[in-house]
Structures are given as C-alpha cells and as structure tokens.
C-alpha cells in the first residue's frame, strides 16, 4: 500500500461513513493469504464460475478471454478452487509458489 497521509478525526466523515463507492480498491489484502490460486489455462473451460463465486471480485477476465487472479485483492480463501469443476485451479502455498 502506498504511504499516504492518514486523515485526522476532523476530516473523516462523521461516524466513519464511507462516502465514496468502491473504496475497497484502496485496500490491499494480499498479506492475508497463505495459499494463492493458480489457474492451469490448459484445463480452464472459461465457464466463469470462479468469477461468479469469488467474494472479493479478484478473478479478472482478460481481453483475450483468459481468467486470471488479481493478487492484490485475492485473500486466499480457496472458494474458486472448489467452484472450478474441471479442477483448473490449485491453491499453492505462498512461499513455495
């Protein structure tokens, strides 16, 4: 995460409201992960189930139609691995990856 000046109590909207939509794009969750999903493109049928099920919207569809993981927002929950019928996704331990 970039080093920004954090807002003081007088600047933060009252009651800690978040007034701008989509502010979670500022939140890097990659440090939460122990395992990360790796997609074997040769097995992927492009069914889109991982894209639907990912609670963080961390699965992105590239212009050429490939499915990839945006690792800034992937928290490593493994839901995509379970959702993938042709077993194209494998959760791989971070340090060994």
């Amino acid at each position, binding site marked *: 995460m970039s080093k920004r000046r954090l807002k003081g*109590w007088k600047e*933060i909207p*009252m*009651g*800690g*409201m*978040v*007034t701008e939509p989509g*502010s979670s794009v500022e939140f890097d969750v990659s440090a939460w992960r122990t395992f990360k999903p790796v997609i074997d493109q040769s097995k992927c049928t492009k069914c889109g189930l991982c894209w639907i099920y990912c609670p963080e919207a961390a699965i992105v569809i590239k212009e050429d139609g490939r499915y990839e993981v945006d690792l800034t927002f992937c928290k490593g929950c493994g839901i995509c691995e379970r959702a993938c019928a042709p077993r194209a996704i494998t959760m791989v331990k971070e340090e060994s990856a």
Partner: protein
Amino acid sequence: MKRLGLSGNYAVAYAVKMADVDVIAAYPITPQTTIVEKLSDFVANGELDAEYVNVESEHSAMSACVGASLTGARVFTATSSQGLAYMHEVLFMASALRTPIVMTNVNRALSAPLNIWNDHSDAMAERDSGWIQLWASSAQEALDTTIEAFKIAEDVLLPVMVNIDGFIVSHTYEPVTLPDEGEVKRYIPSKPLTNRLSPRLAYSVGVVGPPEYYYEMKYQAVDAMERSRQRIKEIEADFNRRFGKDYKDINAYYMEDAEYALLAMGSMTGTARVVAESLRRRGERAGVVSIRWFRPFPFERLAEILEGVRGIGVMDRAVTPGGPSNPLFVDVASGLYGMAERPVLQSFVAGLGGRDVSTDEFGMMFSKTKEAARSGRAGPCIYVGLRE
C-alpha cells in the same frame, strides 16, 4: 394547555406522540411495557403516524432503531434492565454511528435473583456506551425531558437515554400538564436530518475501522459528547423559556448555606428533600443535590454548587463490586478532585432491587454525613437497610 392524570410511562408516551416520531421499534419488558403499549394504541388509532416495528428482542429493537435513524427518521424505543443489557453492544454502535435515537430506560435491577423493581444498575452498566443520560424524577419531568431529548439528540447527533425510576415514577399517577402541541412542533420541527442515507445519498456505514482509523472515529463521538455540554444547556434554556420551566443539569435544594448535603439521582431525591426540610426546621444546615445529567457529567457546576460545603453523602442505587466505590460516588469524587477545598465524601448504597428507603434511613444518612463533615473523615461505604 391540557391537564391529565398520567403515570410516568404514559407521560412518556404522550411526549413521544407530540414529538411525532416516525419509527418505534420495541420489545416489552416490565416496568417499561406500558410506554410502548400506549404508543401502539396511538399508532393503531391513527393518532400517531409512525411505523411500529414489533421485534423479537431488544437487540433487534435497538438494531432497527439504528437503521431507521440512519435514514433520517425520528426514532424512539423504551426498555428496562435485562432489555437494556441485551442492547449493550448495539448501544455503542448507535453512539459511534451518531444516530439521534431517543430511548426511555425505566430503571430496574439486573438479575439474579430476578427482580422487576427499581434500582440503577441497568443504566450504570451502560455508562460508557456513549449515550447522553438524563434522569427525570416525576411524570411531568419525564414528559418534558423526553421532548427535550429529541431536540438534544438531533442537535448533537448522539443518542439520548432518559431514565425514570421503575414503578416509583413509571407507574405512579400524577397530574401532568401537556405542553401546547404547536409550541412542541416549533421546538422540535420534524425536519429531515441532513447527511443521512437516502437513494440520492449513498454511503457505507458500520464499516471496518482498522487500527489506523478506529481511534479517530471513536474520538468523534467523544468530542460530540464534550460539545454537548454547552448545547444541552442552551437547548434546555430554550425549553424553559418556551414552556415556563426551570430544568438544569443539577437541582440544588437548600445549598446556598448548606454545611452538608445528600447527593443522588432520580426519585430518591424527593424523600431526601422532605427529610432535609424537617432538618432545616430544627436549624440544621442540610441540603440536597440531585444530578439530572449523568452523561455528560456536570462536574464543573457540581464543584460550584459544593463550594464551601463540608460534607457530601453520595447515595448510589447500584454497586461496583470490587471498585474503589460505587458508580455515582466515583464520578462525584473524580469530578471534584480538582477543587482546592474538597468536601468530605461519605458513600451510601441504598434501595437495591426496589428496597424502600425510609425517612428514618434518610435521617441516618444525613447524620452520618454531618459526622463526616464535622470530623473531616468519612467511613467506609454504608449499605443502608442491609440485614446481617
């Protein structure tokens, strides 16, 4: 102006009706029930145009109030004892999310043993929840304070709890003067609160506040409470002017030349006054101090009132087991700590679980306080009326 015979609870219901609330979410519990029962009558009869939300618990009642309040609705609920305890976690959210909810808490002892009668342990357990706490000791005061509470809550954007003693105030019928409805409308006009959730103004509330943000968010509510001291004073002065009343943060009786005094909250101060009057007739310089705002605690004005007083007996209707003393005493002692010449403070616990406190017992408290004032030393806390 209409004069009616009303119980403390019905007086509150009339105030809520006059405040023209938008949403009521409540769960019945003795001795509060007749407040929301009366309000459901008003709604069913078409006398009050409000959304009446029946919930399955107090936790849900307070949660519904928070949600409704965030949309800018004027919101009311009432509870007692276990019900207030069950709201506990949501109370902190209500204050930190700055929802101006008004709630009557009809003070009742906490279990065990199960007890439906009055003491102050329920409200004292929520001391730090960030709610403004006002105390009313008659049906008339309950009505007036409830009307004020809406004005205060919506001005400082903090929730307000109005406490009335269970049964002693809640179920006692008294002649109550209803204020002029038009004047109430001018005092608390139903105007939508700005900066509230609506289809046009979307935002997220109740978000995660990580260590980098929680502290600042929490401090906003601390600051609002501090600033409320001045605002409540002004709002109360406005109320007094419009309705011909004389409400203040602390009611002081016979304090101009008092040598010693008893200090308490709620209806017990009534008996204390009667006993002080008879002491005065015997030439004693006894006084009574009744705290009306418990949060924010008016410690500066308390110090002014107690200037020159030698001894104070602080009556708690709740206990803090293992503490240096009981909740009201602790606040009084720390509030007066900065005084150059502090009065001697004698601690009393009285009336737990609805135990009556007799005039003789008040006489004993006055004389123990006088002893402490004269000797300059207070003894350990006295548990009034406790059988060994």
